């Protein structure tokens, strides 16, 4: 098992190198001279030359790349052009917010999507199945922003049940923090829940018709046990893979959701950085997100092996 994880980690290295090259190239390929942007109104050639020298922009590109990578490895992702804060510090401030949002959305998606998928597979062709499918399809089709705005209108403005926006750090007031985050998490999790439900349903349908489920029934086990122990365990593999892939969607969705509910998270940081042409921040965020995505898939691979004894001994 350990050697498997180590091997998967080694495989992840080239991927991360590729991503770093891409992220670096992004900065080089984008139109506009960062030095001009930094110097502002001052177009004095001497200042520009000084800045170029200072940031090493006269060096050959590979040298610049390796310097950047070296810095990144030591945790230095550069300094935000806008706020003059180190990028890593900025990310460190915003990341927990988004992690809380993403976690809550995922919990919501799993808590709704998986049981609904199982239920609709068991009750295939009945009213329950149809209702679940219609709800799931709606969940997939309704755009995030519309759902968000409607929720704000109804829940916050009309019924005044939950705050429309804002953020309370979890360690300050957990209850309040969750309360504020409920609506964004719901909006972010809806599409995920629907996707999970559809995939759980189809995975369960396949497994439920398999011979070993018939064997389990012939043993005289009660139906609950047949479904949870025999069928669901085997249906779990595609669901785990999917959950890891959904992580990407989660981050993309967070960008939008945080805009709607003005949650001061990672997504908002990206949008602001893009609008301000704050390249160092954009670079840092892309890098951190990519590494996170790789880590999630690594976790899924490990879970895969843990769930499937046939893969264990290879």
């Amino acid at each position, binding site marked *: 098992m350990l050697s498997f994880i180590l091997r998967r980690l080694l495989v992840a290295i080239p991927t991360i190198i590729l991503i770093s090259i891409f992220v670096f190239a992004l900065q080089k390929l984008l139109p506009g001279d960062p030095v001009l942007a930094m110097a502002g109104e001052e177009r004095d050639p001497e200042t520009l030359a000084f800045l170029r020298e200072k940031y090493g922009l006269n060096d050959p590109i590979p040298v610049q790349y390796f310097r950047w990578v070296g810095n990144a490895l030591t945790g230095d992702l550069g300094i935000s052009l806008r706020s003059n804060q180190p990028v890593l510090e900025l990310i460190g401030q915003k990341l927990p917010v988004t992690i809380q949002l993403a976690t809550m959305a995922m919990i919501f998606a799993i808590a709704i999507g998986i049981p609904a998928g199982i239920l609709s597979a068991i009750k295939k062709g009945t009213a329950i199945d149809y209702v679940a499918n219609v709800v799931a399809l709606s969940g997939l089709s309704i755009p995030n922003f519309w759902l968000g705005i409607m929720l704000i209108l109804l829940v916050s403005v009309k019924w005044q049940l939950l705050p429309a926006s804002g953020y309370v750090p979890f360690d300050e007031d957990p209850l309040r923090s969750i309360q504020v985050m409920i609506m964004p998490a719901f909006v972010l999790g809806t599409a995920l829940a629907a996707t999970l439900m559809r995939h759980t349903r189809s995975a369960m349908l396949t497994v439920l018709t*398999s*011979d*070993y*489920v*018939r*064997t*389990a*029934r*012939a*043993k*005289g*086990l*009660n139906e609950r046990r047949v479904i949870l122990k*025999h069928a669901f*365990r*085997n249906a779990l593999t595609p669901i785990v893979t999917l959950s890891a892939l959904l992580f990407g969607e989660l981050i993309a969705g967070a960008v939008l959701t945080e805009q709607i509910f003005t949650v001061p998270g990672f997504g908002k940081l990206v949008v602001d950085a893009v609008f301000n042409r704050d390249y160092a921040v954009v670079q840092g965020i892309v890098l951190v997100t990519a590494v996170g995505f790789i880590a999630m898939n690594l976790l899924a691979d490990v879970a895969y092996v843990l*769930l*499937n*004894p*046939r893969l264990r001994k290879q």
Partner: protein
Amino acid sequence: MTETILEAVKLTRDFNVGGSLFAKPKTLRAVADVSLSVQKGETLAIVGESGCGKSTLARMLMRLISPTSGHMIFEGRQIEQAKGRALTELRRDMQFIFQDPFSSLNPRMTVGRLVGEPLETHEPGLSAKQRRVKVSELLAQVGLRPEHADRYPHEFSGGQRQRIGIARALASGPKLIIGDEPVSALDVSVQAQVMNLLSDLRDKLGLTLVLIAHDLAVIRHMSDRVAVMYLGAIVEEGPTDVIFAEPRHPYTRALLSAIPVAEHGRTRHQIALTGEMPSPIDPPTGCRFHTRCPFARAECRSDVPVLRETDTEPGHRAACHFIEEIAAEAAPPAPEGGMGLTDAARARFALYGDAIAGVKIRPRSET
């Protein structure tokens, strides 16, 4: 020996096939009015070509699917509607061995858990330790080692997997075991071993067996009685030796003459059936076999023959209008030697017998 353990009365099972939003589905009658009884301690074989409804019948007997109509009686209890606790009890007394040893074992569970699971349901009083001991005993009983309990199904060969399937079936301490083609997915060399294991276990544990099969050579050595199915109905049934020696239904005769043999220089006297088995969606009128029967006459097309006693032995029944004629004619025409069995087939039986003679086989008085 004459106590009836399982009885089926006019069992019928329909399936709806086709059908869409606008078209009414058609009814496929997989099993039509089948009545049979299984005596305690005997081995009953149900044979027939694929699609004749034998697996459907087996699954109904096991209550994995429920009959459209008809009754089933197990040890005096009516079981066709059994639910909940009654069904759980039934599962304890009646177990099933599946055809495919590869797909019928859950790949995520160790052998120990697969075999031990029925114990958890049917003997909840056992501690985990007692259960492990019992699982080891069960594995030993089918020729596996106790340490196999910690392995997963994919680490075993087909024959070993079928042994696991048998151990699992034995776990609840059943009185009756139904095997749906228990060896047809295995290599021929392994088939004999598994069949022997089954017959040993039957003798040792006093089991009653119902075996579904299409390999007549396997049946010949294993079963006390045979029921031959064609197109969802039983066309002939009787003691194995009598059926093999003096078949009375033309279909049985054709089946027996079709047993292949690998021997040089033998001429085979086969009764070649022409045509396909008719679709059970639209079965022929009268006798179901008349479309392919070499003896068919006008009345076969209109009158449905019922199972009736033949001239041979009590309990040997066939569903044909012309049992007497076939009996009279039986000696010379189709099979050489007049026993309804070609020399070629007999040779294969002998080969099969020799192949498993090394391992124990239940002594059987040959006629």
